[in-house]
């Protein structure tokens, strides 16, 4: 078997809404999931999803935001919206008019990468009138190895806080349990168990599972019964390389 071959047999995520809002607890991996979803839809997704726009709405984290991958995303034909000039490097509550316009006049798919926790999700309430129920996906990224979302109750608490501050209702879950370079097959599969439990309690579907392509190559496709988004890390630390 060729390296990575089994990855191809996983079912890819299917995006049926024009707006995908990605939220979650701090450090759940939202930005990495958002940029990888954008890349997947731009390169391998169905034509009806395109063109792809990604908007960085993270106003609470100063580093490791999706805007750091702007140049690489643009090479794939993805439009990246985030503050420019000095404000690109700030953690100020700047909501660009381009974002609201991009949502209302959208063509294709708009992915919104939102900052962590209820503090980061508050930005959505200022855009709430641009979101029409049924036309957006509000997905929470869950990582069972993060202190405040390690169990179902923690996940439910985080979700209710985010719903409160964003004034929106969740439509789905993304299972993104990992330990960065220490991620094993068990890490990924145990995260799916948690996501399923949250799904059972809330009635929300698991939209997809995301994990590094390298770890996925060691998992049998039959072990994961939800769509899968293989990740190639795009938000690296300065000393890390992708090979």
């Amino acid at each position, binding site marked *: 078997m060729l390296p990575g071959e089994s990855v191809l047999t996983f079912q890819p995520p299917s995006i049926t809404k024009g707006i995908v809002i990605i939220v979650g607890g701090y450090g759940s991996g939202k930005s990495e999931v958002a940029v990888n979803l954008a890349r997947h839809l731009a390169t391998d997704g169905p034509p009806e999803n395109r063109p792809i726009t990604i908007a960085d709405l993270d106003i609470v984290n100063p580093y490791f935001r999706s805007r750091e991958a702007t140049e690489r995303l643009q090479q794939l034909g993805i439009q990246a919206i985030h503050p420019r000039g000095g404000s690109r490097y700030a953690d100020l509550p700047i909501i660009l008019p381009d974002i609201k316009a991009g949502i209302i006049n959208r063509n294709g798919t708009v992915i919104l990468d939102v900052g962590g926790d209820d503090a980061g999700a508050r930005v959505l309430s200022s855009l709430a009138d641009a979101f029409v129920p049924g036309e957006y996906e509000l997905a929470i990224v869950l990582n069972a190895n993060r202190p405040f979302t390690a169990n179902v109750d923690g996940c439910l608490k985080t979700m209710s806080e985010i719903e409160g501050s964003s004034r929106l209702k969740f439509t789905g879950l993304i299972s993104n349990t990992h330990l960065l370079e220490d991620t094993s097959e068990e890490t990924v599969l145990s995260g799916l168990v948690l996501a399923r439990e949250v799904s059972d309690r809330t009635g929300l579907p698991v939209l997809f599972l995301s994990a590094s392509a390298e770890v996925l190559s060691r998992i049998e496709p039959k072990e994961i019964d939800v769509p899968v988004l293989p990740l190639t890390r795009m938000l690296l*630390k300065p000393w890390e390389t992708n090979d």
Partner: protein
Amino acid sequence: MAKILMKGNEAIAEAALKAGATNYFCYPITPQTEVAEYLSRRMPEVGGVFLQGESELAVANMLFGASSTGKRVFTTSSSPGISLMQEAISYMAGAQLPVVIVNIMRGGPGLGGILPAQSDYFQATKAGGHGDYRVLVLAPSTIQEAVDLMMLAFHLADKYRNPVMMIGDGMIGQMMEPVEFPEKYKEPPLPPKTWAATGAKGRKPIIIKSLYLDPNLLEDNAWTLHDKYEQMKKEEVRFERYKVSAKNRILLVAYGTMARICQTAIDELEKKRISVGLFRPISLFPFPEKQIYQEAGKKNIGDVLVIEMSMAQMYEDVDRAVRGQKQVSFFGRTGGIVPSPEDVVEQIEKLIDKRKPKAKKKKA
């Protein structure tokens, strides 16, 4: 305990709780605010005190008061906030109070920017406030090390009755890494805090101060502090070496996350058969002077190269430690720009090219 994924700022906060810290005072500033955010949830759970002051000045003076009671107290801030605390840090050093201060550094001077830098090296290691004092300075390069050093910091603060500072560039606060906490934290025994102001019932009141109007007493205090710093130089020097061997042609010196970038560069150079070693100071005061002197003095070392996310600050200590045995060069970026492994490789190749014997021109 199983590994969990934590942001540096959260891990530092949890490590302080594991070390028995009960009082945390803070004023928010990027890129360390998550420490405060995390502890605002956790401190009430462990029955400790979380208090946001009205400024960094207030916070630093709250530390003075709380530390006087013998409790384990700490704060976290970033560069401009740490500058505001310097007066109280000098007072605490003068009054011999244990306290732990974390500086998650951003670009400066002044308000600077919010991206990572190591520009507060001088401030941390040379006494940022007034008077004859030093603080013990620890510099982690991974989140796990930040956890371990944070717990150690409380022990050392108590051992020496002196402020201990842990410094990391903004990335140490912001990046995520898997970490593990000890099930139960054990530390060597410490003497009882007989100096603490815990209520004077049945004994004479204890007065904690840094004011000595009699110059003889003030000088005595300076000697007491001096002796502690000499003891630190003997007992608390910490460092790590990476791929240091007799094959090395160049010795790099870097600390914190800058050292990790150097490690990637060293691995790249190894593929090109260029052997470079890294010396990473972990304690910045006391500085591993003797060890750097010895490493730099080895015959195989042609050059010493200091790499920082600041403008030749640690360079001065390395140059002093090498004592003229070898040429000491500097490379750094600052203001929030982080040198890449490629930048480091390029600098090393330039140094090697300089040393290559030039082909002699034949006489016509």
